[in-house]
């Protein structure tokens, strides 16, 4: 039997990484505390663009949390053996990313000290209210799922619990998309397509994060991921990136033709300054086309570095897309009086601009550092390293199915 084994890791490197991750996390929390004390006047947000960079990063992590669980689901729910050893790491990342994303969103609240009120109050007409149920159950289900995957005596339950977690994550991301999908007031949102679109976004972003973490863990342990396993997973990433492009295209098409939001769509895609630039240059080119080339173009597609670079670019593209979606959707003025020219002291009728301030940037980056630090500790204290019995997989044909 040929099982690739985890090798002894370097204590010094671990504590150094822990210190760096912890420090950046602490700076992020301190930045949030500064905003809490001084008020959001020290942020770049205002009464028109009131959800800023922390929401872009926080929502990215929350969406990716659901998507990263896909890897475990493919293994234990859909029975693909090549993915089974990756289940525990997938579950750990799901928990970690959700925790980090929620940390950013909660720390950005105007009154973060009152978050217990939201946790103890039920308003079922509020998607945020649903989240107070969706997120804790997700934590519980995924925790249970990881237990059934890692404790051999509980392996028999992994498919049942995994199926429940899989369904729950779809519901959860439906909820995340519906945060915007149910907003009737704004041109950018109110669209039924946002729920499935966010699910497909989660697939791509979650897998990209998984591939990066897996590569780093293998590199740190001086292990080599089997090229055919890498090829399988990079092909899946390619499919997800293509599907994201498709959904984003349909979202804009429905806005133009069905919802008659021509002016808004023109703003976001053509005339809106930074937003079209980030959409076409950041999301479409850097975050989608270049990764697809890296994953499929001859000369690149077998290269380990190409897959990792494509994963990083997919993440960057996701952040660009969310920036355009969340900030652009608020920057464009509300259309209260169709066909009329509107002016006011409250900037009605005016396109707003938003520049994130340093505390917002530190909080947002701090959230990623929280995810990094929690993952680092997680993979240190428990055995999350995906270890493949390559010979067995190969002889059974599982590297190709």
């Amino acid at each position, binding site marked *: 039997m040929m*099982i690739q*084994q*985890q*090798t*002894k*890791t370097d*204590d010094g490197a671990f504590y150094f990484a822990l210190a760096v991750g912890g420090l950046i996390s602490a700076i992020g929390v301190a930045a949030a505390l500064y905003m*809490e004390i*001084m*008020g*959001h*006047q020290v*942020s770049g*947000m*205002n*009464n*028109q663009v*009131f*959800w800023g960079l922390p929401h872009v990063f926080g929502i990215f992590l929350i969406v990716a949390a659901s998507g990263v669980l896909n890897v475990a689901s493919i293994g234990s729910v859909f029975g693909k053996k090549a993915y089974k050893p990756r289940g525990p790491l997938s579950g750990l990342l799901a928990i970690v990313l959700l925790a980090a994303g929620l940390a950013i969103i909660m720390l950005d*609240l*105007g*009154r*973060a000290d*009152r*978050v217990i*009120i*939201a946790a103890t*109050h039920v*308003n079922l*007409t*509020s*998607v*945020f*209210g649903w*989240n*107070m149920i969706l997120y804790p159950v997700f934590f519980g289900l995924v925790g249970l799922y990881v237990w059934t995957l890692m404790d051999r005596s509980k392996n028999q339950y992994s498919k049942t619990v995994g199926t429940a977690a899989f369904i729950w994550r779809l519901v959860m991301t439906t909820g995340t998309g519906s*945060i915007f999908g*149910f*907003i*009737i*007031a*704004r041109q950018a*949102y109110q669209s039924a397509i946002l729920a499935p679109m966010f699910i497909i976004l989660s697939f791509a972003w979650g897998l990209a994060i998984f591939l990066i973490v897996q590569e780093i863990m293998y590199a740190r342990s001086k292990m080599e991921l089997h090229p055919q396993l890498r090829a399988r997973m990079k092909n899946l990433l390619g499919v997800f990136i293509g599907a994201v492009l498709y959904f984003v295209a349909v979202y804009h098409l429905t806005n133009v033709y069905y919802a008659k939001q021509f002016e808004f769509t023109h703003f976001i895609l053509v005339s809106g300054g930074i937003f079209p630039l980030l959409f076409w240059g950041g999301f479409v080119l850097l975050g989608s086309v270049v990764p697809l080339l890296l994953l499929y173009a001859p000369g690149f597609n077998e290269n380990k570095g190409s897959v990792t670079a494509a994963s990083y670019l997919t993440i960057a593209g996701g952040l660009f897309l969310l920036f355009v979606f969340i900030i652009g959707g*608020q920057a464009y003025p*509300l259309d*209260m*009086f169709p*066909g*009329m*020219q*509107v*002016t*006011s*002291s*409250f900037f*009605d009728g005016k396109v*707003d601009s938003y520049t994130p301030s340093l505390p917002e940037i530190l909080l947002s980056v701090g959230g990623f550092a929280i995810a990094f630090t929690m993952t680092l*500790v997680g993979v*240190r*204290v428990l055995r999350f390293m995906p270890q493949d019995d390559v010979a067995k997989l190969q002889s059974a044909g599982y590297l190709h199915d």
Partner: protein
Amino acid sequence: MTEPNDKSRRGFLGAAAVGAAGLGVAAIAPGLHLIEVSQASAPSQGASSKVRWGMLIDTTKCASGCDACVKACNTENGINEVLKDPRQASQWIRKIDLKDPKSGIAHSLPMMCQHCEHPPCVDVCPTGASMKRADGIVLVDRHTCIGCRYCMLACPYKARSFVHMTLTEQNPEVPRGQGCVESCTFCVQRVDKGQIPACVEACANAEHNAMLFGDLNDLNSAIAQRVAQVKTTQVRADLKLNVGVRYQGI
């Protein structure tokens, strides 16, 4: 299989446990209560569902350039803070100037919370801080708002403001607070005493009389009779929110 790092892993876990225990002890000190019960007195009489407070704004009487209503609102509700970025300042009521680019016809009107019968802000609020009283007035409970700003995303009228800084010199009857969302209350503190909102009073004092406040449910009230007689408009009527503020002349 190898057993990597078991010793150092146990060491790390042990150190982490000691650290966490230390933090816990420090956080829970004698006499410190995590939750204390608020001792507010209950109002003697609640709002009545028989009443639907509303406002009718005659844009043909509203003068462009006049902001008496805005000033009166700010004075009544203690909105006096100065922010470096004016986009971060609270505006419970604002004057909007409209111009039809085809005909050149212009209108001026005050815009504020429209006190919807079906308020999207109340629908989306995760804490119940955004609420509608039985008499139709939409309010934010400043003591339970967590400042998530989801209601601001949901409001079709840009009627809500987020308080971006620490406030001083507040009107005791109008609690406001940093980190919370707020909006026009129809001067509920005045209405509950049988008075009209400050903006309506100021408009009358300026001899424009463009704003009429009253009970839309009371068929004998001036507002109900005017609404029955003249063509009025609900802004974003397509959303079917059945707003309490109606406009005449647009």
